[in-house]
C-alpha cells in the first residue's frame, strides 16, 4: 500500500513541478516504485520537465471520463522502469477533474506504487482541492520571499482543516549571498512564521533551469548542490535522518589559506 504526497505552494512559480520531478526521481533512484501525477489541467508541464512530452497518448481527463484505462495513460520514464507519470490534459480546464475521480485514481495507484507524488496547480480553487483530495500528506514549497511565505501560510491553514498529517516544508531557491546580507528572509524567519517541520532546503542553481529545459531532472546529477538537496529530501521522506546541507560555498585552496591566516574571505 503506497503513500500519496501532494506538492503544493499556493503561489505560482516557486518550483512545485521541479520539486515533484526531482523528489520523484530521487525516490526512484532509491529503488522505490513512484508515480507522478500532474493535476495542473490546462497548463501541464511536468511532462516537459521529465522529458516525456512526446510520449503522451492519453491523459488524466481521459481516465476520469473513462475513455481509457488508467494503465494506458501512465507513461513509463525513460531512465527508470519503476517511475511513471500520469500527465494532465492540456485542452480541458480544472473542472474536468473531480475530487471523487482523483480519489479513485489514487486508490488504484496505491496498489502498485510505493509513492504517488501529486503536482498541485497554483491557487486555492478547484484544482487545489482536487490535488489534495486523495493525498495522505502534503509538502509545502516556498521561496524565502514574503509573498511566497504568505501564500504558503494560507495553504497550510487550508491543509490543517483537513484530516491529513502535519504538512512539511521545503524552502526552495535559496540564494546564500542574499540571505547573508539580509536581503532575503532567513530560513529561521520562514520556519518561525509557518511553524511546521522543515523537510529540506534547496539552493538556487542555474543547473536546475538547464536540467528542466533538457528534460533531465537535476536529481540525476552527481555533484550538484541542488541535486544533493533533492536526494536528501527523498531520504528524509523514507525516514532517514539527514542533517541539513551547509549553505557555504566550497572554498578554494587559496581562500582556505587566507582564512587560515586570518584574512577576511
Amino acid at each position, binding site marked *: 500500500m503506497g503513500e500519496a504526497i501532494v506538492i503544493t505552494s499556493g503561489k505560482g512559480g516557486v518550483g512545485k513541478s521541479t520539486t515533484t520531478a526531482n523528489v520523484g526521481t530521487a525516490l526512484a533512484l532509491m529503488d522505490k516504485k513512484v508515480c507522478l501525477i500532474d493535476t495542473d489541467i490546462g497548463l501541464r508541464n511536468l511532462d516537459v520537465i521529465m522529458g516525456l512530452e512526446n510520449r503522451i497518448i492519453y491523459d488524466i481527463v481521459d481516465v476520469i471520463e473513462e475513455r481509457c484505462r488508467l494503465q494506458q495513460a501512465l507513461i513509463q520514464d525513460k531512465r527508470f522502469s519503476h517511475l511513471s507519470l500520469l500527465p494532465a490534459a492540456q485542452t480541458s480546464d480544472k473542472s474536468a477533474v473531480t475530487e471523487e475521480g482523483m480519489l479513485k485514481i489514487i486508490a488504484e495507484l496505491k496498489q502498485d506504487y510505493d509513492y504517488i507524488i501529486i503536482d498541485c496547480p497554483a491557487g486555492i480553487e478547484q484544482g487545489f482541492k482536487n490535488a489534495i483530495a486523495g493525498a495522505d500528506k502534503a509538502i509545502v514549497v516556498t521561496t524565502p520571499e514574503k509573498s511566497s511565505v*504568505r501564500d504558503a*501560510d*494560507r495553504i*497550510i*491553514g487550508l491543509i490543517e482543516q483537513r484530516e491529513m498529517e502535519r504538512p512539511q516544508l521545503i524552502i526552495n531557491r535559496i540564494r546564500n549571498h542574499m540571505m547573508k546580507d539580509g536581503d532575503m528572509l532567513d530560513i529561521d524567519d520562514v520556519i518561525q*512564521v*509557518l*511553524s511546521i517541520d522543515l523537510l529540506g532546503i534547496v539552493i538556487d542553481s542555474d543547473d536546475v533551469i538547464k536540467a528542466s529545459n533538457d528534460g533531465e531532472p537535476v536529481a540525476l546529477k552527481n555533484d550538484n548542490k541542488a541535486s544533493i538537496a533533492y536526494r536528501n529530501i527523498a531520504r528524509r521522506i523514507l525516514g532517514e535522518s539527514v542533517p541539513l546541507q551547509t549553505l557555504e560555498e566550497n572554498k578554494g585552496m587559496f581562500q582556505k589559506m587566507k582564512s587560515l591566516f586570518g584574512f577576511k574571505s
Partner: protein
Amino acid sequence: MKQMQNDNQIISIKGTKDGLIFHINDEASYQDVILQLEEVLASVPHTDQQEKAANVTLQLGYRHVSPEQKKQLREMVEKDNHFYVEKFDSKVISREKAKQWFEEHSLKSISQIVRSGQILDIEGDLLLIGDVNPGGEVRATGDIYILGKLHGIAHAGTKGNDEAVIAASYMNPNQLRISQYISRAPDYETEGVYMECGYLDKENEKIVIDRLQVLPYVQRKLRKLKGGMYDG
C-alpha cells in the same frame, strides 16, 4: 388617590431627587396592573401650564415583561406627556439574555495558529495560545490576550466596546482595531515589541500601544473594577 391607600394596592409611587419610582407589585396579574395603572394615571391632577415631563423608573421586581408589554407600559405612562419612562428596573432576565450576557463576558481560551486568510471571531474575551500570522485576523467582542506573536490583525470590542484592550507577548501587527477605531503599522519595516498592550485613548481618539505593565492603570481608568486583589 383613594387607590393608593388601599390594602391590595398594586402600584405605589415614590418620589426621589432623580424622579419618580413606580413600584409595581410583582404578584399581581398583568391585567390588574394595566387596570390600576390606568386609574393611577387618570388621578394625576392635570395642570394647564406645560411642565417638563417627570422622569419615571418602573420597578418591576421579579415580574418578567415581554418587549411588547414593555412597549405598552411605556406608551401608557407617557401618553399625557406628564411622565417620561427613564428605565425599567427588573430583578429577572430571560434565559436567552442571561446566556448572551455570559457569552459576552466569559473568557474563551483557544490554542491554535491563526494563519493568513483565517479569521477567528468569538463572543467575549479571547485568550489565544498561539500566533496570529500576517494576513490572519482575530476578533472578539471583549478583550484579546495573545500568548504568542501578533503579526496580523486584532480587533477587540467588535460590537462597539471602547474599553476593550489587546495584549500580546509579541506585538508586530498589521493593524490594531478597538471598537470602530483603527491604527495600522507604519509603512517602513519595524521590529516588533515584546509584552505590549493596546488600548483606546478616549481623549485623543487614538489607539495607544504601551508596556503590558500599564494595563492595570488603563483598566482602572477605563472601568471601575469591583473586588480584586487585597494587599494583606
